[in-house]
């Protein structure tokens, strides 16, 4: 079944054509990687899917058109993401950062908050969300840092906090923007495993932008290659590696 259907998506910033007519689909249960040289439009494409920019063309999530839909409605549709440059909330603790991910599921407005302990209040939901957050942190090996200020954690751990925040949102589609950037080799291996587990055991489909070809080749089911905002290739890891256009874009070889 097709989960995400991206059709003829284009976006220009002034005179710069960041994306032109990009079309692809992501199937349920797939790990779909987007690769390409710097400035190819990979993050822009992810931003279009998550609602930062409104492109032309259509993007459908399980048949629902999401171009023009407010960004904050995406988690409800099952779309969540991580960021290339970590976008955690630096003044908060690790667990509070993670909890923000699942907050869209909590029904607690001003009144429920004021009636915190009463049956109408939000304390029960809070407790459940906290448990789920601790569980996610446990899976990523961060449980002991739950109450630490997130800004005190090293870079690699902060990246994993972002992943935990995305996990508790129970996404169908997880958008990862360079999840292993700045990580050590060991950290990269761990993260690769964790993404695989999320995909295989929890049925989360993944769209991943990644520069580390080792990681990409190891876990991707399919790969799309962007260059100057255009799709130049798509296929299995083996097909993409053999594609002459890809070799040209990456290595400057004559096609």
């Amino acid at each position, binding site marked *: 079944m097709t989960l995400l259907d991206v059709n003829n998506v284009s976006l220009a910033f002034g005179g710069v054509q960041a994306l032109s007519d990009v079309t692809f689909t992501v199937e349920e249960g797939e790990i779909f990687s987007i690769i390409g040289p710097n400035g190819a439009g990979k993050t822009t494409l992810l931003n279009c899917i998550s609602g930062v920019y409104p492109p032309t063309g259509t993007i459908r999530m399980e048949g629902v058109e999401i171009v023009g839909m407010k960004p904050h409605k995406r988690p409800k549709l099952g779309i969540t993401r991580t960021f290339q440059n970590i976008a955690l*909330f630096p003044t908060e603790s690790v667990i*509070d950062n993670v909890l923000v991910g699942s907050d869209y599921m909590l029904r607690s*407005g001003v009144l429920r908050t004021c009636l915190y302990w009463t049956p109408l209040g939000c304390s029960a939901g809070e407790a459940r969300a906290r448990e789920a957050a601790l569980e996610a942190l446990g899976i990523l090996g961060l449980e002991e840092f739950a109450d630490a200020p997130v800004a005190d954690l090293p870079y690699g751990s902060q990246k994993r906090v972002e992943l935990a*925040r995305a996990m508790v949102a129970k996404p169908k589609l997880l958008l990862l923007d360079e999840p292993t950037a700045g990580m050590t080799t060991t950290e990269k291996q761990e993260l690769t495993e964790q993404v695989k587990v999320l995909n295989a055991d929890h049925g989360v489909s993944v769209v991943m932008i990644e520069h580390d070809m080792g990681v990409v080749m190891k876990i991707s089911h399919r790969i799309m290659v962007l260059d100057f905002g255009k799709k130049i290739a798509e296929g299995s890891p083996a097909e993409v590696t053999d594609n002459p256009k890809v070799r040209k874009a990456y290595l400057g070889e004559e096609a």
Partner: protein
Amino acid sequence: MDSNKRSNCSRPLLGTRHECIGAIGLIVAVAVISQFLDDYFLTLLTTISIYALAGMGLNLLMGNTGLISIAHAGFMGVGAFSSAYLIHDVGLPVLLSIILAGLITSAVGMFFGLPSLRLKGVYLAMASFAAQIILYWAFEVSRWFTGGQDGRFVDRPTILGVSFFESNHYYLFVLAFTVIGAIVNFNILRSKLGRAFSAVRDRAIAAELMGINVFRTKMAAFGLSTFYAGVAGALFGFYLEFVAIQAFTLFISIQFLAMVIIGGLGKVSGSILGAAFIVILPEVMDSIALMITPNAGEMAPIRMGVFGLIVVVFLIYEPHGLARSWRRFVDWGLARMGVNR
């Protein structure tokens, strides 16, 4: 199950059990002592409690959500005049009037909060400055509502036959509101709403992509913040037994800003300590001035200067506010008592 319970208890209202007991002890002590104070100290204590309530509101907006309002005195005025109007002209019961005054202020606050969707930082400050000017002007011209320059009288409340006319009794009335306000404030900060506030403050775009409705969150911040201000205003009116527009000037609004910054942004304790600081410091300086010269009047200009100086020194040496000093003091005290936190 046992460990489960503990993990829930690891986040009680005020942190640890000792702190909880300490806070309850403090409230009871203040309530008991207040009954034996003379009018001078009761005035200080009541003003501190009312300012603390308004400060909590402003702190939710500034400290927690990263927005700004230089109109909180104006919002307090809306609450004060609304409750006076609802009680004396409409004839509603006191408690209902206080709540309604809070809600009315909340609606006014959200209206003046609308620019926050487009404006940030100093630009938003200017917009709220305009709100203060508009509100003050509206108080002046709406004589049917505010009495204009003459102000209007309000009676201290009587609820279910219990009179809060005497200042020491009225203090308990105020204290109840301040305590409830503080508890609600804590509850907001440790639940979804509080997380949404700080997420919007820290990174609005990331917050939005995580499913937070930034518009609604900012409106909730303005609504809650000005609800606090409105209730504080109502309590202030009862206390003075006379609501005058001069009590809600720009100067007071700026004093509220100073209050939450000195107290500690984003902390409930900061709102309370800041209120105590801003009320007590001028009194202390007056006493010192009287010791130096019998004619305290000639010290007035110096007083303002010294006040400003102390505030600046504070910001330099304790940028996280009195809340941080208090934290250190409590930790030190607990360590001395050998309590393991």
